[in-house]
């Protein structure tokens, strides 16, 4: 299984991404596992979104290998086209700036996500045009999945409304549900709690934990990769956290370990080392004994 430990879902090895003179991602390696939420944190411009864009085929990495392990097969994401990554490797994502289909209805957004399955069922449209029973059955099943997710994210009564007319929180949840309707094995979320109020981000945390544990995937656990600024969310629900700064990975471990890592504290509080650290940070550091991982 290509050096991957049991349960490894995604393996990122020596990933680099260069934009002209800017090395946005610099030799980053980490792993994500099925049944775990892997948090990716770091200051603004650290390269988090760029990692996602490499994973989902929007950028072609300058360097590195991205392997996804599913059903005993290995998919090399860096060599696949964007839509194939979603279709074959089953990696789904959301966007930092929400990207719904704003003038289509909420329900249609979820139906579009099931496009490939429905295309096959409709005999690439030819059978479907004549209302073949197999297509009608597939459509009913697709609607059932939509219904389940609408219920789950509390948007059932807005099913026929334009997606663009939903309030912000609803749009965020709809985007997650839409990604889940592709039935992924790895869900990549780019700052899903941005712009949510504390109650909403609490509900979001619960939703993400449920998704990790197999809600909506017929009980199959999946892997979640979570970029987040809201520390309360990341630290509470992440099973494992990767910290990026200026494109480099500076820390990797459990939420506890990362929280106490002096590298992380420095990255978040500024570079000046001889500057006196705030008392609560010093307390934090001594408490955790500064377990640093290379």
């Amino acid at each position, binding site marked *: 299984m290509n050096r991957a430990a049991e349960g490894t879902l995604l393996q990122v090895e020596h990933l680099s991404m260069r934009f002209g003179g800017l090395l946005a991602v610099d030799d980053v390696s980490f792993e994500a596992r099925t049944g775990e939420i892997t948090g990716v944190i770091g200051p603004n411009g650290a390269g988090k979104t760029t990692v996602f864009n490499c994973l*989902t*085929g*929007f950028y072609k990495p300058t360097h590195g290998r991205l392997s996804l392990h599913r059903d005993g097969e290995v998919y090399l994401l860096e060599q696949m086209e*964007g*839509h*194939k*990554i*979603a*279709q074959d490797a089953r990696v*789904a*994502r959301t*966007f930092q700036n929400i*990207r*719904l*289909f*704003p*003038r*289509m*209805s909420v*329900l*249609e957004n979820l*139906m*579009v*996500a*099931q*496009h*490939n399955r*429905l*295309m096959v069922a*409709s005999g690439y*449209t030819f059978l*479907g*045009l004549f209302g073949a029973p197999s297509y009608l059955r597939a459509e009913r099943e697709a*609607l*059932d*999945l*939509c*219904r*389940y997710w*609408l*219920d789950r994210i509390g948007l*059932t*009564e807005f*099913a*026929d409304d334009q997606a663009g007319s939903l309030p912000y929180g609803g749009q965020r949840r709809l985007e997650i549900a*839409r*990604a889940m309707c*592709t039935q992924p094995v790895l869900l990549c979320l780019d700052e899903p709690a941005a712009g949510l109020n504390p109650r909403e981000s609490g509900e979001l945390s619960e939703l993400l934990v449920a998704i990790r544990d197999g809600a909506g995937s017929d009980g199959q656990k999946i892997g979640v990769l979570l970029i987040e600024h809201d520390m309360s969310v990341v630290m509470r629900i992440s099973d494992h956290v990767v910290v990026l700064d200026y494109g480099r990975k500076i820390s990797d471990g459990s939420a506890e370990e990362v929280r106490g890592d002096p590298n992380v504290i420095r990255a978040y509080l500024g570079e000046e080392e001889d500057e006196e650290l705030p008392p609560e940070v010093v307390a934090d550091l001594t408490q955790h004994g500064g377990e640093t991982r290379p």
Partner: protein
Amino acid sequence: MAATTLPGAREDSPLVALLKDAGIAAAIAFLLALPLMGFQTLDSGTTVDLQYRFHWVAIATVGVFFGRIVFTLLYRRAGAARSKAPGIVGQGMARVGEGLGRFLVPAFILFALILPFLPFADRREIDLATYVLIYVMLGWGLNIVVGLAGLLDLGYVAFYAIGAYSYALLAKTFGFSFWLCLPLAGILAAFLGILLGFPVLRLRGDYLAIVTLGFGEIIRVILVNWQPVTGGPNGISGVPRPTFFGLPFTNDPAEGETAFHEFFNLDFASLHRFVFLYYVILALVLVTNAVTLRLRKMPIGRAWEALREDEIACRSLGINPTNTKLTAFAIGAMFGGFAGSFFATRQGFISPESFTFIESAVILAIVVLGGMGSQAGVVVATLFLVLLPELAREFAQFRMLIFGAAMVLIMVWRPQGLLAHRAPTVSLGPGSGGSR
């Protein structure tokens, strides 16, 4: 200008702004009117004299000044009313439209079906209706590409031309019947659509528009220059006329043939052919509509619309953008090809003249004016853009003026098009809200 001024920021500022705005408009009008209206050349036989008409310039400038004030005041009031009740007016209108639609659409179809037998319908009216229906079909075909898939295609007329020439050449060279040529022409047009689509569909927006514009011109230039096959600028004449399942519409059928009127024991009337053509295009139009409405509710149709909304999101959901665009392009082209081959058999003569850029522009205007993606909108817009100018032929010189003014007014009044309401393609139906 006036609109950006905060009311009440200063006592006199809205008025000053209004006057300033009107002054600028008047100044522009003055600059335009001076060369355009200020001078007139008089041909007095041997020499050319210049006549000055500065009073005209003054009238135009003053007219624009006050016109601008009136326009701004009216527009501001309309804007205030709109911002007071956002969406409600539009939604109400959409609902009215929906209610009317339920009643109007069948009425419209019924009217179209019995049109040739209505008392006022004569050769000219039936022919005009046929002409309008060709544009409805072209509009619906392009609606798939532009309205649903959001691909701005400025060269749609190319597929219309390919359909027409395919029919003319196949029918003349091989003696194929209309009903055999029709699908062949459609397939050929679709094939060319795919051929064109492959290299250009990774382009977006403006770039795609320019390339398709070029494609339309290339096809026309080929038609003009490929003399041995297309007949060049002279076109192809003597394109076989349609037959009623083998019965020709002529007064003097060839040896061994039975004409339509003989077979049915009627007196010969040239009207028969027009009525037949009318029903052929009506059938084609109804099939186009039925297929499009059905496609919209299929996964492919939803993918087209999703692609129009956000291509990046589509890719992240596993939709292959290139293939999806290609299908839209090909199916749109196919309907264009059908319409083209019907056009060829109706005219009996085709030449590159009929397939200039202005045709593409009119078809695109029909789609945009109708409200992108709206089937009924295309019909209404066709009546506006094709039927009205035909009926107004008496006003020859004012025709284009009225046409232009009507388009500007409609775009000011309804920038999203006449019928912009979009009904969802799927809904949960009764008993929704359950869990899996």
